[in-house]
């Protein structure tokens, strides 16, 4: 039993979170292994967002336990979660369009040189790291790290946000709606980026409404309803339609 829990990167055990009288999630158990891509699906209000916000330290749970690499952890803020390498990519909160790629990549975590108070940016180092990480993510169309983010497509922007989270995080990546409003081709770019990130040993959790996309990208899909986990299926065992039925409340599995 002890062994089983320690080979998981991240594990929630019977976690409950209430908002006043409203039970947002109720004794939810959930885990992610290194290199695993887990999809989190469910109708609006099923508790997906709350679950992610418990995982990234935005909320602390009322009951239950969180283990990271087998050890119990307690996050008082998203910063605590970030410190151990849990990075969240919010769809509409990820990037600043008028800023260049490298400035976005290092926003809030700039590399500096020199003595205070005259610490200046190490631009060449940041340019090099940013473009290198983006090329690894398959963003080969990008010619320079000085290009502004607003010329990137939706899929490329997500790939940039994922590359950044991978570079700074390195253990668990939480993606909030990474493919919503994206075309199939753009979704492929996100999928590619997620698979490259997983290749380096990252655990990935994806919340998405588009079950087709989730089914295409993820190894395992967890279905939530009314604040509870009602199923966890391996992608290879089910079709996208099965999952849709479960989300819609037709439990045919």
């Amino acid at each position: 039993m002890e062994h089983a829990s320690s080979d998981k990167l991240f594990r929630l055990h019977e976690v409950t979170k209430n908002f006043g009288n409203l039970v947002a999630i109720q004794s939810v158990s959930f885990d992610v292994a290194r290199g695993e891509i887990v999809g989190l699906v469910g109708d609006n209000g099923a508790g997906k967002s709350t679950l992610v916000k418990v995982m990234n330290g935005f909320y602390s749970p009322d009951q239950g336990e969180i283990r990271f690499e087998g050890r119990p952890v307690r996050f008082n803020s998203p910063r605590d979660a970030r410190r151990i390498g849990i990075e969240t990519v919010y769809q509409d909160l990820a990037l600043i369009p008028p800023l260049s790629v490298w400035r976005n990549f290092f926003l809030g975590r700039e590399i500096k040189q020199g003595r205070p108070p005259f610490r200046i940016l190490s631009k060449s180092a940041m340019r090099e790291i940013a473009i290198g990480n983006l090329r690894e993510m398959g963003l080969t169309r990008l010619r320079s790290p000085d290009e502004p983010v607003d010329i990137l497509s939706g899929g490329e922007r997500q790939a940039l946000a994922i590359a950044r989270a991978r570079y700074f995080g390195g253990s668990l990546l939480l993606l909030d709606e990474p493919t919503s409003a994206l075309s199939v081709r753009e979704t492929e770019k996100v999928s590619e980026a997620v698979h490259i990130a997983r290749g380096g040993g990252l655990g990935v959790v994806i919340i998405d409404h588009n079950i087709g996309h989730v089914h295409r990208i993820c190894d395992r899909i967890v279905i939530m309803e009314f604040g509870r986990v009602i199923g966890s299926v391996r992608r290879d065992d089910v079709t996208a339609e099965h999952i849709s039925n479960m989300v819609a409340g037709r439990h045919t599995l």
Partner: protein
Amino acid sequence: MNGQGGQAIADAAKPVSRTRRGGVWLLLQLFAIQELGVLIAAILIGAVFAFLSPEFLTTASAGSILASAVQFGVVGLGVTVLMIAGEFDLSVASVYSLCPLVMASLWIVHGVNVFVALAVALAFAAAIGALNGLATLLLGIPSFIITLATALFWAGVSLNLTGGYPISFFGVSPVMSWFGGAEIGSSKISVSILWLVGIAVILAAVLRLTALGNWIFASGGDGRAARAMGVPVSAVKLACFVLSSLLAAFTGIIQFGSFGSATPTQGSDLALTALVVAVVGGGSLMGGRGSIIGALLAAVVLGMSYTGLVLSGVSTTWFQSFVGFLLLFAVVINLRTAGLSAKLGVIRKS
């Protein structure tokens, strides 16, 4: 024989094509300049006035151009930084007239030490800026509205402070000389230009070379996203409000130093002119974009226009109309050059 001839032709062709490529490369690099739009405007307007008036290209005219550029520029730089951070400050005109009045009143009317009076006036400006920032951030009301309200309030305070009369200084004071009374060497150029250039260099360095600069652009580009990335957006914006107000007061004190008189009603159109400086310089009303070098050039363009109109025999009462025309003209060039460089695939360094 034939092959040799062909070789000779190829050799002759080589340097030609190389220089042509070099020329194209140079032209493309021109489009990489973020401030190209305002640079073109500056050259065009300078050329037109040089053509209209032979006195335009003299040191006396340069002194006049730079003196106006300081008045539009120092306050414009503060408004530019604030606009990059995504906020407005319409109260700069009121601060511009109120703070030198506070200084003059304490110093000349009440006999307070000049340095103390100066410090109090600047601290007062900083407090007004902080108030603008706190009201905007805490009440969640757009800064356009907040600073319109404070602009009206402080303009009224200015009028009532002296009953509408100016306060004049007769005599010699080093402080007045430092802030514009003196001229550089034996030229007709006021020392005030050194303040403008010095402030511009510092602000440009902060914006482009420091993490704080990155945060200022990010806060204006998308405040929510910047906050999600751990940028202290409210603190950054607050600092920019204080800067804008401080530089407005500074401009007013330079004006006081240059002319020896602080007037409650002066500079009432400065709030809009400062916005013109920021926008002509390449700033966006949506935040996240703007350039200190651009704003500096825009201030020089305004200075050239003012002096140029006078020298061309046109009444300065036409100045505002000219600024209106200039604003449209410069914004169109800015957009066109930016669009063209994107089309040409030229990358502007950030």
